[in-house]
């Protein structure tokens, strides 16, 4: 009887898998998809470079350049945790697939400008 039910089900059920390009892939809220960098907030403190377990991030402080090798990045989110300036963020969508020659190493120019300290008013 149970087998009969199972056989009948086969005629009417929808596919168990997602029909991917038609139905967009839904991630969970906390999924670690890909890393996003905000060049306007980075102060080149180099913490992300030091603490990256797979050495995907390089920061050149003098040239103000921040680079990420997506093929080395393991999406652990350690850099997001150690960044005190919220310059890094983990997005929930996965990065689009590409070959190393197409994407290469992503380079960003750091545009952060140190806010000027308000001058002390000296008594005249």
């Amino acid at each position, binding site marked *: 009887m149970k087998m009969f039910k199972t056989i009948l089900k086969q005629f009417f059920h929808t596919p168990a898998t997602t029909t991917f390009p038609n139905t967009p892939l839904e991630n*969970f809220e*906390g999924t670690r998809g890909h890393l996003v960098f905000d060049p306007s907030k980075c102060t080149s403190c180099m913490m992300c470079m030091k603490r990256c377990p797979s050495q995907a991030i390089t920061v050149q402080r003098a040239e103000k350049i921040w680079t990420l090798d997506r093929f080395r990045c393991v999406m652990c989110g350690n850099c997001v945790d150690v960044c005190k300036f919220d310059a890094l963020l983990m997005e929930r969508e996965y990065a689009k697939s590409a070959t190393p020659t197409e994407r290469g190493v992503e380079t960003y120019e750091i545009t952060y400008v140190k806010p000027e300290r308000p001058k002390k008013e000296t008594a005249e």
Partner: protein
Amino acid sequence: MTGRQTIIPFGPQHPVLPEPIHLDLVVEDERVVSAIPSIGYVHRGLESLVDRREYQDFVFLAERICGICSFTHSSTFCQGIEGLMGIQIPQRAAYLRTMWGEYSRLHSHLLWLGLFADSLGFESLFYQAWKIRESILDEMEATTGGRVIQGVCKVGGVRRDVANSFLSGMDDRLDEIEDNMKDLTNVFLNDYTLKKRLVGKGVLSKDDAYYLGAAGPTARGSGLDMDIRSTGYLAYGDVGFKPVVEKGGDGYARCAVRCRELFQSVEIIRRVITDMPEGDVFTPVKGNPDGEYFSRSEQPRGEVIHYLKGNGTKNLAQFRVRTPTLTNIPPLVSILAGCELADVPQIVLTIDPCIGCMER
């Protein structure tokens, strides 16, 4: 009269082996006389990286020792560092680690059941097992952010908290998972064909299991009451844990241990979810580890030992892992001697070999 002996190579590439291990099978007619294993195809030198990464970042590397029992590796490593530095992790973190540890056991056992069914040529059962596993991986991704590599452990606790409302939802979804698993294990334990291939094949006696150093379900299938979870680390002491032991010692007993452990894991997760204490999920860590520590915990495949030696700097001086698969190789060699050649693939799979984990 003895027949002529021939050596048949088995692996490193073989349809039933997901990972490379090589066995030289000395065969007399259709009977295996002895098996000579050789390992070392996927050695990555992960342990030596310990002097180039800080101990807090090495957690991510320790997790990548294995692709299936990844969570247990990271939690064992963290447990070791916490032991070295004398850190007491918050109760909620210990409970969450227990919960994720059991979820990873569920997904590992279901993966094994699927692969095992596939090795016997039972493909529909393979898909059924992996379908259930998918729902467990979804739970993992929703709570930790990663499907297989969770990356949620850190020294001093865990990186993410799970909201209580979400936990109660997980409790409801466990009912459905348990129902599906009941149908699945019913086939594994009662199907005529599977029983024919399993009962009495690859028998490992209780004494042999003890003297050859079997671990995990291989040892428990031979009647050895050996489970590190009964020492009550993390929250296992609070949930009233009792190891699953089968007396048969053959492939069927090892399969039955894993099937019964599925339901035991579900029970543990239920207990952990209902008793989940409130509070922080991590304690701030200061200073560097110094001294020696043996960290032990129970993986899906058996007992794993992490040996850590600190020297007061940010990098550990020494790190060594002993994984359960390595200790299960001598029992495997002993049970292969005397079996039929056609039974070799399924006997090799009954110890649940995880070669990537063994060679690191």
